[in-house]
């Protein structure tokens, strides 16, 4: 299925309904939330809340240039505003037992999420938006409420911290 989360939506590709929109963007939104929270349960709650907020203003969201990006911004702000969040070190659970494992080193997959969870929430959000969604610094700054300069500083610092665990990690900056 075409990933709508990072592509601008043209008039032709605007979602016909809220349900279609969730089906088209839900998996990637959940993956974003898992990277942010480090915990599947928290991620599911976060995603549902973000989509609920999007539905509550669906008239606006559906007319946005990129409804998926708009909803991801809601998700990011929810994550950063959640005062009840705690540092989570549990390993993420897979969605379904029959989902085939992807390629790559399983221990690396689990450990990277664990390492992300050791970062400050804002640093985590900056990394996920910048390197998972490949957003420009200006947009990352806007969604996290930081200046562009602070964004770059936080990304650099967070990368340095991840590299203490994974020395071979390279960025695209």
């Amino acid at each position, binding site marked *: 299925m075409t990933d709508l989360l990072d592509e601008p939506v043209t008039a032709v590709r605007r979602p016909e309904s809220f349900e279609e929109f969730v089906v088209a963007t839900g998996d990637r939104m*959940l993956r974003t939330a898992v990277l942010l929270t480090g915990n599947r349960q928290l*991620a599911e709650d976060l995603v549902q809340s973000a989509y609920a907020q999007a539905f509550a*203003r669906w008239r606006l969201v559906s007319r946005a240039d990129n409804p998926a990006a708009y909803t991801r911004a809601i998700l990011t702000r929810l994550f950063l505003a959640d005062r009840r969040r705690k540092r989570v070190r549990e390993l993420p659970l897979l*969605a379904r037992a029959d989902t085939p494992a992807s390629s790559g080193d399983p221990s690396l997959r689990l450990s990277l999420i664990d390492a992300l969870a050791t970062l400050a929430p804002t640093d985590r959000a900056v990394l996920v938006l910048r390197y998972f969604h490949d957003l420009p610094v200006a947009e990352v700054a806007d969604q996290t409420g930081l200046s562009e300069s602070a964004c770059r500083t936080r990304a650099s610092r967070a990368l340095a911290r991840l590299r203490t665990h994974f020395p071979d990690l390279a960025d695209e900056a």
Partner: protein
Amino acid sequence: MMLHDSLDHAVADVSADLPALAVASRNQGLSIRRRRRALAAVGSVAAATVLAIGAYALAPGVGGGADRGIATDLAAPVVSGRLSGATAPITARGVAAALAVSVDGVADGTFGRFQGDASVRDASVALLFEPEAGSGPAGQVFINLQPIVMAGRAPYTCDGYLEDYLTDCKVRRLPNGDTLRTYREDDDTEFGAGSQRVVAEVLRPEQRLRVLVFAMNTNPWADGGFRERPVLTTEQLTTIATRPWWSRKQLPVEYVEAGEHLDLYEG
């Protein structure tokens, strides 16, 4: 290994029960809508209490400031189709609906905290509007439909007290004979340094009507927080103020009916 690829691999196995997610999100969203409509009718203290319990999210673009406790996430009332031309006696709720629809026609954003009053003499309505563009707290938009005598005698100019207290005042004659006057006021003594207000008023001698609309860069009911500029521009306010159907006595029936579904804050 590239970080992008590493992150991708880390969550490659993650997937959701999408149909269930859609249903649950819709139900939760409906609940949010119902509660936010109710919040539009209560005071800011009560609203803040409910929001603290319910852990409402900040809307994208909302900055700091004490007005977080006031929900500004309502869409404008829906008035579909062209106006029929039929009118009904003016109500405060009808003016609120007309103002919200008019604002919605010139700018994208959300609304909250409708407040107003209508009497035999005049009608006033205020609302909070949070534009989709830009960042910062919601700002007040206000309309007053009053007797033209409140503007003094013709000719309507930028002289006198306007020159002393206000800036950027401009006057022009409209094609229909009405007068449009626009101006701004910065650093209001009541709302403090940093406050900005832009005003558009239309003076209609034949209807003995003064339509005054303004927009601010702040929520005057909150303790602080300013946007970079007022939530509407002078041009947008002019479009709103020059709507031909504003009146002190009657409104398009579509707006009166739409207003019946609005809750007004009483305070």
